């Protein structure tokens, strides 16, 4: 569904993403992890057509994101870590607006279902300024899912959600995957990645450290089967020496 070949993004002389290649199939959920500044957000921005790659290609559903941008973008939904909404549009006006952009003819039915599912159906006439952060995120999600995207990118999807919201978000992501969407999740929350991702791609300094199923990645970074959890794997994969990070003493004495 998404094919990335030799994706490189430069800012001046700074290499944000370096020769990145991978692909993701329908129904897969890929976790994109890496330390701060690894190039995760830049990668997602390139994959969604927000910024052009300096080199390399990104194909979404067979359409090149640069040359055939319209066809590619029609299949994508990108959820940023901060919900980005128009201050002067109400909840329902947001859906109406997005429906026209993506030409969703039956948006009224789909929109109402989504709002019901996300439990903001009683806020139809509210402006974003009147919504809590969690509700804003739900609205952004409703807008993104309105056109039934086949490819979904999440940048830190759990930021600002309450425990119930987190549970619903995880369920929602898995449901979309079951429905055949290809999903990429960029997150620092390794337990989230471990819970819902079927694949893992670790980035460091813009370079791919490893890409594979969770089992493959675990096997590669474990000295013995089952001796490492995802956190250990992350530290081993991203540390300079390949060694696990030293145990951190508790901040407060027991």
């Amino acid at each position, binding site marked *: 569904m998404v094919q990335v070949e030799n994706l490189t993004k430069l800012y001046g002389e700074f290499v944000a993403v370096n020769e990145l290649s991978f692909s993701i199939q329908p129904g897969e959920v890929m976790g994109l992890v890496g330390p701060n500044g690894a190039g995760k957000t830049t990668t997602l921005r390139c994959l969604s057509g927000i910024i052009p790659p300096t080199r390399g290609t990104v194909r979404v559903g067979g359409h090149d994101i640069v040359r055939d*941008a*319209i066809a590619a973008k029609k299949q994508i939904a990108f959820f940023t870590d901060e919900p*980005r909404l128009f201050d002067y549009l109400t909840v329902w006006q947001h859906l109406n607006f997005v429906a026209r952009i993506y030409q969703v003819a039956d948006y009224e039915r789909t929109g109402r279902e989504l709002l019901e599912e996300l439990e903001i159906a009683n806020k139809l006439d509210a402006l974003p300024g009147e919504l809590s952060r969690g509700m804003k995120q739900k609205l952004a999600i409703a807008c993104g899912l309105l056109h039934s995207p086949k490819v979904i990118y999440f940048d830190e999807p759990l930021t600002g959600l309450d425990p119930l919201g987190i549970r619903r978000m995880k369920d929602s992501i898995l449901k979309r995957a079951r429905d055949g969407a290809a999903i990429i999740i960029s997150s620092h929350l390794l337990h989230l990645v471990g819970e819902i991702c079927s694949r893992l791609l670790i980035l460091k300094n813009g370079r791919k450290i490893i890409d594979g199923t969770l089992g493959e990645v675990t096997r590669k970074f474990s000295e013995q089967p089952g001796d490492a959890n995802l956190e250990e794997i992350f530290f081993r994969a991203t540390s300079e020496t390949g060694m696990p990070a030293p145990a951190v003493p508790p901040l407060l004495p027991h």
Partner: protein
Amino acid sequence: MIAALLYLQYHSFRNRLVSRVKRLKQPKYLIGAIVGGIYFYFYFFRYLFRGYGGRPVVNMSIPVVNMSISPEHLQLVELLGALVLFVIVLLAWIIPHERAALTFTEAEVAFLFPAPLTRRNLIHFKLVRSQLRILFSALFLTLISRRFGGNAWIHALGWWLILSTLNLHFLGSSFARTILLDRGISNWLRRLLVFGMAVAMAGSVWVWAKRTLPEPGSADIANLNAILDYAQRVLTAGPALYLLYPFRLVVRPFLAQDATVFFAALTPALLLFLLHYLWVIYSDVAFEEASVEASQKLAVRIAAVRAGNWQGAKKNQKAKRPWFKLAATGPSATALFWKNLIGVGQVLSVRLWITIVVVVAIFGVSLGNIGRGQNLSLMAAILVVIALGYSLLLGPQVLRLDFRNDLPLADILKTFPMRGWQIALGEILAPVAVLAACQWLLLLVGAGLIFYLPGKQEALFLAIALGAAVLLPVLDVLLLLIPNAAVLLFPSWIQAGKDSPRGIEATGQRLIFALGQMLVLLVALLPAAGAFVGVFFLLYFAFGPAAAVPLAAFAATIILAAEAGFGVMLLGKLFEQFDVTEEPAN
């Protein structure tokens, strides 16, 4: 404790200054600083420490005007200044309704409020911090007032004294307001009492003037000098002289003609300043809770303005109805047009319309008075023409519901499955439509007035109105394309709001921008102007001016429309190439 607060003040100021100096390494700030510096020098600084009669170095700016006050008018000017101060103070007691809230930043609230500091420490911190703003304001006002003569140091100190006393008074009055609220005196009751007192004071002056002075005749209001003479008679004797006494003390040092008079006036003014200080310091008012709330609101507004989102910075936004029903299918650009029209509804509030109507009415009445005896419709027609001119000048600056407003959401716009030109077209359509609608309305009014104008030029004037109706919408597109292209080309140069880069370099950037936009517009207008002139003279002799004007306007419109179409495509390309990781405005 106060040393720590001074340390914070000093280092915040110093670090801000250093970072601004450091950014001069970037050409855009350096060029801005040079242009801004030249502007400030020629416009203000060269007059600062030079007598008003000093010869300008280069004769390219507005000449210095000798407006030194004659001794016979000094008392009147002092009283007028006192009157202005009185009105400001009166408004400070009438308008506000909130409880006392010293405005702190969120960081200051987080660090200072839980710290072992007394309330008085916090007030001192606030006072010291406000001094920085006051000093800059005093300097700026001196630069302006110095152009009209007088001693620079006296002006600077005079301004400082006026602004500092006012600052203390605002703070004291906010504390007093809170105390009154705590004692059960509502805002409306307080307003009524203060207003009643002001009316009583004005009434006493009026009664005195009525009993003592002869009725003002037509000669007393014939011109400005006559009005001033009459005002002098009313204000320089009787109760006004005493009622305004404290305010006179504050303005007196500023108006001093020499150092001796200044120092003589300084003592009572400083005494008044000291009294204000003691009032503020010894008012034991709990301002913390309101301050925390105010700081949070301020932070939200600053964040919104920094993001270029003026709408988000506004208080009490209300949901607006869409101007038309948006179907789910059809051209995508219409969605952006629809969205921005809803946003226009936030800008063009009922209050704004009332303000516009009041301003136009006042302007119209004054014009009517000036042109008393002349044809009123001629005055109204002149007003329409002036309003049309201003719509072209100010319209594109006021109506910013386009890329200038949506740039902080550029990454979201870029995910839309739309071509660049479609997004560009959708973005600028709303301001163009609103502007064109206003202009057509004005033209309609103007066309109605034509039949009441003196002379027999109805056909020609109607032809001009028709030509303008065809030409203006396309011209609006061009006028809006230029700032939109500018914001995409130089996003970090565009001033986002009150929290955007300030100072000499920002002024320079604005000047360069204004000049650049004017040049681009001139270049864009040249071919259309050529077409207009060509067609006009071609048809003038055959069919007369009434037919030549609209046809020439039509020809010019075709040229402008072609340019506008090209401009939209170009704007779309610029948006496609726009890098969302570009340095933000701040």
